[in-house]
């Protein structure tokens, strides 16, 4: 590019930048992307919050959900949420959280019923996500809550009743991060501790996979 053409090019470029800056005053910086229509958003906006935002109209009971659960969920979770193999257990674990073996289930751990609805709706059944209807989702959610003795078999779960379901571990969480929770500052460099003992050795456990290629 000759020098004069370069100058001309630069002038045009600067004009464009000026135009973009002016547009920024109107709230659009680059003018990229299209306005998303309500219909477009609705197809993907599948989340539900604890306050009920996002829960759609519809309903179901545990009685309705049992058959769906047995057909769609029980192969992994067991008919009563007791789990098959290493798949997640959905029931039990009450009073276990402070023990040496916390069992974190919907009943013992989950703070909000909306999370259960949201997760089933978006990710279950495993391998066939988003295939349950809204009513089926309410019904299966109700069934899992029922298995945990949190609602009655005929309790009608819907957008009004779901946020009010009392979850036992609702107050079991600390929202604020208290870290750093170990000593900070200038680290010790010499003579920092007394006698050192080996407390655990990994080799005797023999649970490390052999190192061959996958």
């Amino acid at each position, binding site marked *: 590019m000759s020098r004069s053409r370069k100058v001309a090019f630069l002038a045009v470029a600067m004009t464009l930048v000026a135009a973009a800056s002016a547009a920024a005053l109107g*709230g*659009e*910086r680059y003018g*990229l*992307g*299209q*306005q*998303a229509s309500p219909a*477009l958003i609705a197809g*993907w906006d599948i*989340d539900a*919050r*604890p306050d009920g935002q996002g829960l759609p109209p519809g309903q179901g009971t545990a009685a309705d959900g049992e058959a769906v659960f047995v057909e769609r969920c029980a192969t992994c979770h067991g008919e009563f949420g007791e789990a098959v193999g*290493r*798949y997640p257990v959905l029931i039990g674990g009450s009073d276990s*959280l*402070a*023990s*040496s073996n*916390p069992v974190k289930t919907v009943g013992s*751990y*989950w*703070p*909000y019923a909306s999370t259960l609805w949201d997760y089933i709706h*978006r*990710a279950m059944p*495993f*391998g066939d*996500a988003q295939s349950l209807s809204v009513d089926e989702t309410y019904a299966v959610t109700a069934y899992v809550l029922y298995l945990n003795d949190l609602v009655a078999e005929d309790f009608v779960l819907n957008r009004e009743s779901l946020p009010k379901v009392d979850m036992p571990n609702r107050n079991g*969480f*600390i929202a*604020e*991060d*208290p*870290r*750093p929770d*170990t*000593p*900070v500052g200038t*680290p*010790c*460099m010499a*003579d*920092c*501790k007394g006698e*050192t*003992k*080996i*407390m*655990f*050795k*990994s*080799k005797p*456990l023999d649970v*490390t*996979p*052999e*190192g061959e*290629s*996958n």
Partner: protein
Amino acid sequence: MGPGVGRRAFISGGAALTAGLAAGAAGGRIVRAESAAGQPPNVPDWSRYLGAGVDAVPYGAPSAHESEVVRRTVEWLTATPESSVNFTPLQDLHGFVTPNGLCFERHHGGVAEVDPADHRLVIHGLVDKPLVFTMDDLKRFPPVSRFYFLECAANGGMEWRGAQLNSCQYTHGMVHCVQWTGVPLKTLLDEAGLKPKAKWLLAEGADAAGMTRSVPLHKALDDCLVAYSQNGERLRPEQGYPLRLLVPGWEGNMWIKWLRRIEVGDMPWHTREETSKYTDVMANGKARQFTWVMDAKSVITDPCPENPMRHKGYHPITGLAWSGRGAIKQVDVSLDGGKNWHTARLDTPVLSKCLTRFYLDWNWTGEEVLLESRAMDETGYVQPSIVELRRVRGRNSIYHNNSIQTWLVGANGEVENVQIS
């Protein structure tokens, strides 16, 4: 594998090593059979005959002799490979950049195979103008490139109750570090225009897990990126192709892959991954919920169980350190289980929220050693011992185990994962 021998064959063969060290080290890497024909004064075949021409491998691959340098999984950890994890072979890497094919994987619904022509990113909720972007739209925004580490909050999670996995790869391999290229999330949010009540956003993936995490707006506006490239090429499918959220320094689960939607709101969503998972149960049964930052951590990658000591004499101890709070300021190495410490040399560049390579010159005389590294970051945070961590958090936390790793180097050169008082 090339003309070498497998590790099992090597172990049973009991090949002779210098001073007889580390001959049968569990987890030790291959020592290849040597062939005099390839060594001086002989002229090896590769010096006589023509090699492959250009385009023999249009997309290059590592040497066949490096076939053991791969990600590996621990099958007993999870119910299915689609909702599982594998581990970066840190013990085989140099510098601080992780090759794309070795970045550990963590999926909750398998690797989504997304056609970029059909992929969309929707931004809606508390915004002035909800927007939908194509991949072409996103690549037209001014790009930035940044090096960041990515660590799973559960890295080291199997070691809370005691030393368990005898391997650097399995104890520390849920971390990687690449150069990402993309668009600042702030740029996209500004494009849509945030409403005054906006405080949080929900990021959602297009995979079969519909992965979702709530991200506080202050972080989103600070240094989050929406990335389409890693180490100069488009994202690998298993890293979220074609689009991924980056939440620098914070737990990997928040770095939503196959990013399809961002909803702006005024409170967190309390999704499954931020309530039932990725929350840290303390000894009293209460759980810390929003523990996002990955605290300073380090590990010695050589020696380690996979890299036993094969020679007495000079050996450069090396490892990696990182902090989600900023840049690594100092790394110290102990040879006596944390009683005395020696400051290591940091290789440059030392970047914020990025892996940092360190070295310590060492002359091993064959004695038993309790080898440790301890990282400190620019905020003054010092990597704690597992004893200190257990004292405040108990043993049930699963997540955020950033404790000092102890390797027991035996007199025979073998290296074992141990935990000490």
